[in-house]
């Protein structure tokens, strides 16, 4: 089981790495969305600093949404998904591996680039650590809940909009607590309660979303 888990994880990460352009595009999208905000609200440094945490989190959330359909769609088209169903290993484990691979390939690059965007948005310097840390513990929830959404809509031809409609409401707790963490760090108030709630949301979705996603895939491939 561990072998299959590691194989799927490695395969997905390698596929995304070697295809290159898709992963790069997500990062580019992240940068572009973030850079739209200074145009929209004006280049006022104080105002930007105030909303910088929120901008980065919203942009990360949207970029993540953009890359969700690649979790299952290619596998569905070339038939690998049917093979996963037949594999001598619970589908939940494979979905866990695939969600984790999505986090590594789609969210980790965003976390790495986020501090640079923080500079452009005039994020106070003492909040950088918290920004990275909150994204590290919060974004797994985005990948795992997102995998659930991708599983629900994998058999649809135009599932993209439906996927966003289903998933974005579920992303809201991550957004709320993620931004609260960074804002508390900026203000210098206590962070731990927000961080624990954020970690709770993450752990909750990591633990439960693969089951729901596996159920959805089994239904979809019937």
């Amino acid at each position, binding site marked *: 089981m561990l072998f299959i888990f590691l194989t799927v994880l490695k395969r997905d990460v390698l596929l995304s790495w070697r295809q290159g352009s898709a992963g790069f595009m997500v990062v580019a999208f992240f940068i572009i969305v973030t850079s739209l905000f200074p145009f929209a609200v004006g280049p006022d440094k104080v105002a930007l600093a105030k909303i910088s945490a929120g901008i980065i989190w919203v942009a990360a959330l949207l970029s993540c949404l953009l890359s969700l359909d690649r979790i299952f769609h290619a596998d569905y088209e070339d038939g690998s998904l049917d093979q996963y169903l037949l594999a001598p290993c619970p589908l939940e484990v494979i979905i866990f591996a695939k969600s984790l691979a999505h986090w590594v390939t789609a969210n980790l690059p965003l976390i790495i680039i986020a501090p640079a965007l923080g500079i452009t948005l005039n994020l106070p310097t003492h909040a950088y650590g918290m920004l990275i840390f909150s994204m590290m513990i919060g974004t797994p929830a985005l990948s795992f809940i997102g995998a*659930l959404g991708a599983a*629900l*809509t994998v*058999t*649809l031809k*135009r*599932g993209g909009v*439906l996927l966003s*409609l*289903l998933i*974005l*409401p*579920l992303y*809201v*707790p991550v957004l709320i607590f993620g931004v609260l963490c960074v804002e508390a760090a900026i203000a210098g108030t206590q962070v731990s309660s927000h961080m624990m709630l954020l970690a709770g949301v993450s752990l909750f979705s990591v633990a439960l979303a693969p089951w*729901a996603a596996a*159920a*959805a895939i089994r*239904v*979809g491939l*019937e």
Partner: protein
Amino acid sequence: MHKFANPARFMRIAKKIVPWSFSLGFICLAIGLYGGLFVAPEDEEMGEAGRIMYVHIPASYMAMAGYIAMGISSVMSVVWKHPLADLTARACAPVGAVFTCLALFTGSLWGKPMWGTYWEWDGRMTSVLFLLFLYLGYMAVWNAMEDRTRAAKIASIVAIVGVINVFVIKFSVEWWYSLHQPASIITSEGSKITMDILWPVLVMIIAYKLFFITIVLWRTQSLIMERKSEKLEGRISALREKGYY
């Protein structure tokens, strides 16, 4: 319970219930509205504007109860593969969505004179807004899929996952500092509202509930008939292909 799985029996029972639930609901609505708008004393703090309560509380209550009904039907459809449960869950969604809209709308009208704002991004309001999005997503799943049995299963997963939000709504006033007042009708120490104000609210809740039951039964009946007519059409076109028509 499996007795009601038979659509024909369900239709017979529903036809008997609907006239009663409709007329009783109508009477309760009339009594509740009269009681709320004319008989109940004016609220000390809120004045006449407090009377929005008689429309707002039952609507919010039914917005959540509708989602729970949808969730329970979905669980039944997943666990017992109950074909009627799919249809009742599907029938609940638009009705619940309309109650959610009504709750948000009346809430914002009430918020203006009370809190000085139509909308505030606090836990209660935001989570109810997301309840509306969940209803819309659920309905979108049904619309997006041609294959009805598959749509039913996917939609029930969506509905069950979304039930979490109902608990978030319920406890949002306790978890977050909020403009919205905490639970006052059902608490561990009994109701905090005096009886003269409470009774029209309760009557209105019963009225809304009966209205909900009536509409859901109506919609389920029409969904059963829709499914029947789809099947018949399929059969006719199959016959046509064979050259019988």
